[in-house]
Structures are given as C-alpha cells and as structure tokens.
C-alpha cells in the first residue's frame, strides 16, 4: 500500500517538480507570458485544491486561484530560488484564502444546487468527481480535508505539508490516515451522492 501511495505521490510531484517550476518562475520574473501559461497549467489544480480546502466554496476558490497567479506574476522578480517553488506558490494561495475567509466573515458551505451548477458549468466535472469532492468537503474536518487534498495535489511528504499548514507532523500523519479512510468508506458506501 505504501509503495502504491508513494508512486502516486511521484506522479503528483512530476507535474509540479521543483526542477520544472523553478525555471518557469525565473522566466516569469523576466516577463515571459508563455512561462506563465505553463506554470498555470502545472500548478492550477494544486492552487485550486488548496483554496477549496480552506474555503469550501467553488466560486471563491476559483477567485483565489486566479488572484494567486496574478500575485505570482507580479512578484516573480522577488522569488529567490530555494528549491521549493510550489511551496512559495501555495503559501501565496493559502494567504489569499485566509484573507478571503476574513473578508467573507464565515465559512460558506456549498449547497447541493451549487454542486449541480458546477457540473453544468464545467463539462469536465463528472458525477464521480462531484461525489468525491462533496465527500471531502462535507465528510472531513478542516484539517483532514486540507491534509488529504494537499497530499493529493502536491505529492509532498507529510513534513512539507505540516510546514505549509503550520501544524505538527503527528497531526498531519493522523489526519491523513483518518481522512483517507473516511473518504474510502463514504465512496464505497455511496453516501453524499
């Protein structure tokens, strides 16, 4: 099982590997619009996933995703290569998500009809996708959701996740296990459809 999950993590890492993102950020710093396109393609799911895990609201998460890439573009000249470009990007996304939460005052959960609209607006989103997203948003605690989504979209080690979320490593480990088990149970049980 662990080997399989590690393979999975490798796949996630492949899309956003430091050796791929770092040169893109350096090009962004020089105003390269093509580099922005590629960065967006590689990191948008990770940024959106993290934003959604904080905001629990598809529309707000989309806004934060767009805002994040605009900030990255504007501030790329300040980026200093540290070997952790995705962490830098996601830290921006996290901060913007927290600001969005403060702006709106409280967490707004997605109503069932909003999920339907999400599916209608975006033909890529299948009913299977809706099911797993709803299970993650409704059935998990905030920390469980953040940990499992971050792991899924980044393939990071738990230590790196603990650093970004500013929570203890032990918490990440326990939340991750519990979250996966809960999701598995929900999906197999067919709940939240």
């Amino acid at each position: 099982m662990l080997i399989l999950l590690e393979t999975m993590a490798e796949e996630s890492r492949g899309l956003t590997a430091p050796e791929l993102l770092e040169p893109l950020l350096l090009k962004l710093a020089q105003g390269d619009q093509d580099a922005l396109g590629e960065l967006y393609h590689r990191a948008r799911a990770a940024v959106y996933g993290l934003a959604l895990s904080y905001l629990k609201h598809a529309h707000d998460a989309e806004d934060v995703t767009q805002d994040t890439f605009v900030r990255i573009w504007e501030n790329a000249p300040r980026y200093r290569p540290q070997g952790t470009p995705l962490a830098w990007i996601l830290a921006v996304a996290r901060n913007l998500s927290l600001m969005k939460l403060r702006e709106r005052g409280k967490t707004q959960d997605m109503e069932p009809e909003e999920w339907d609209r999400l599916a209608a607006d975006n033909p890529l989103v299948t009913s299977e996708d809706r099911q797993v997203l709803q299970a993650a948003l409704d059935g998990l605690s905030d920390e469980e959701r953040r940990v499992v989504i971050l792991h899924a979209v980044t393939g990071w080690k738990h230590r790196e996740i603990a650093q970004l979320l500013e929570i203890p490593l032990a918490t990440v480990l326990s939340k991750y296990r519990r979250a996966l088990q809960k999701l598995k149970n929900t999906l197999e049980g067919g709940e939240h459809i």
Partner: protein
Amino acid sequence: MNERDVEKRLLTALEHAAPNDLEAVRARCGSQHSGDVVPMPRRKQPMRRAAPWLAAACLLLVIAGGVMGTRYQKASAVASLVSLDVNPSVLLEVNEAEKVLSAQPINDDAGNILDGMDLTGTDLNVAVNAIVGSLLKHGYVDELANSVLVSVEDSDAARGAALEEKLTGEISQVLESASVHGAILSQSFSSDDALRQKAEEYGISMGKAALIQSLVDSSTHLTFESLAGLSINELNLLVNSTTVQDQPSQAGETVADQGTITSTGTASQSGYIGLEAAQSAALTHAGLDASAVTWKEADYDYEDGRMVYEMEFFANGVEYEYDVDASTGEILKVEKEGAEWSEPSGGQSGTQTGNQGGGQSGAIGREAARDIALTSAGVSQSQVYELEVEDELDEGQPHYKVEFKAGGYDYEYEIDALTGSVLKSERERDD
C-alpha cells in the same frame, strides 16, 4: 477501492474542477514589481522555523494587503484582542462585528485546546463557548483549579468594557452548565507597548501580563518574573488576597478591589491546606491559645517561589508575623515585635523602651503605669498592640508615657510616676 484510488479520484476531480482560464489571468497581469524591499511585519509569535517560502509568502501578503486591503478593511480590521487564560492561553483577534479573525495558541497547551477547531469567521461568543468547552473537556478547568481569565484589549474603552462583561457572562454560563463552580477574572485595557514587551519576553498573553502587572504594582515584594509562571488560579487567589498589597488604601483591600480587575466567583483552594489549618500551625508554633490572639491579617501571598498564608496577629502585646507554606503547612517565616508582658521592662527585642531599667525610687513602675492606662482606656491586654512604655522620670513631673493601639484607635497616656494618676490621655482614629 484502495487508498491510492481514493487519492487519485480526488486529484482527478480537482484537476477537472480547477478553473482553466489562463486568458483571464493574463488580462490582469500588468507590470511586475521591481526588486525593492518591502519591510516584513514583526511576527507576534516566535517562528519555530522560518522557512524561506514562508518569508516570501509573507512578503506577498504585505503587497496583496496593500492592493486588496481597502476593500476588506472594515471586515478584516482588528477591533479587539480577546485572550482567554487558564494555563492554556488563547488569543482571538476580533473585528467590530465581533467575528473572530484569527485564533492563536499562545502556549503549547493551547495547541491541544484549539486542535481541530477552525474558529475563523465564527461569532466571538460561539468561539469562546467552544474554547471553554474544550478547556473543560481537556481537564484544564475543574474544582481543583477553577479560574479563568478573560481579557479584552481595545482602544475603545467603552467597547472593551462591554465586551468584557458580555464574555464574563458567557463563560459563567458554560461553566455553570458543566456544573463547575468557576471563578472568572476579567479586565479590559488599551494597548501598552511596555506590557506587550513583557508578555513577549515571558511568552504569556497580554491579559496575563496585565494581571501580573496589577499585582506587582500593588506590592513591593512581588516581581513580574516570580509571577509569570503561576497559574491563573494562583494569581486569582493573590488578586483577591488582603495581604498582598503593601500599602492598601484601606485595611483588608485586595488588588481586585482597586477596580481594574473584576472578580466573579471564588478561586479554588482545594490544592492548599486551608487558612484555618495554617492559623492553627502558626499558633501552635508560637505557643499561643486562639482566645488570646487578635488577628490583623491572614491570607494568601507569594514568597520565595511558594504560595503562602501570610499572617499577622497580636497577643499579649507582641506582634507576630508568620508565613506558612500553603501546600505543606511548613512554617517558613516567624517575626516577633514587642516584648511580652511577663518579660522584664526594657526587653531585648521589642519596641518597649526605657532608661536604665526605670528604677527611680518610689516610682510605680512601667507595668503599673501600663495597667492604669489600659484600665483608663477600657481595653484588655489581648486587644492591645504596638504598645510602648517610656520613662520620663527626669522631667519636672516624673511620669510614664504609654502609647498603644486598640480597636482602631491610637492611645497616648501620661501616668504620674509617683502617684499613678492620669496626667494626660489622648485617643485618635488609627488611619
């Protein structure tokens, strides 16, 4: 389905649901910032490990705050800082609408209390309920240590005071519903840089720092450093103690009586031997019977790193001062002032004074002069303290000067050394 499948499905769903509108991003991408340095705000909490990406992200947040700040200013502006202290200390940033903007643990214990709770965006009263509930659940508030400190830091004094009162009521209700006889200390104050510096230095909340400062200000023997490690329950006992203040404006006044701190309920004393046991230990040590003793003070204090009962009492003209360890009953300090009646005049340790033994031929003697004065004043020996008898035998009319205190009055008598008649008597209120 295995766990890998679950995670894979989640990733796929997010890839599908993530926005794919590069053009919208490009349309907003104007000029880039140059490399000039934007100063970083100082973090309130020490960073465990300042990862480079986090520093970079903070930098971005400063910039983003400038751009987006005005729009969010109202909702995101911190109006009040509310801290809840037991041993765990939690700081809540609250906006004008009394919504929680952030909840921060001030110490390690508070991490357990906040674990799994996302209080951002919730109403303050809901957040306070949740935190106190968690404190109860984790056993931080019980009959052994039942004190909670709620502090409101607000530049608007009226708003701070109103919030303080509201939260005290809220916490009181939560404790009552859990059948805990809680004791709540509450205070509101405005920002104070010197205090903030101390709070940071000792790793405690501003609220606890303000409470400690009130105690330190009212006493010459308490130091900030010595109190920083005490629990709120211990501080509550001191705040409500009549012996902590060195110079109270009124006898029996406590720090809580001064008005900056409101005290509700009684702090738990279950961890200590109790005042009666301490009094008994002191009297046994002094070899005195309770009936011969007039108590001046007896309450909690903090001496040399220990909670103590500090006691002052009078018996047979001697003033006694005892410190008894509040946990063990051990006698830590004994001081006696004044000579006992049975001792020879001009005694070794006391304030009773005289010249060469006062042995003028035909003089009635100090003890007789004392007795005459007490009889004249209508007070018994056990009621008297700070007694002084001086010989004035070389004067034109030889006499004894007898001064003492009793029943809230200062007395001064002059007794004729030869006849025992009262030459002068004065009585005035002892302030």
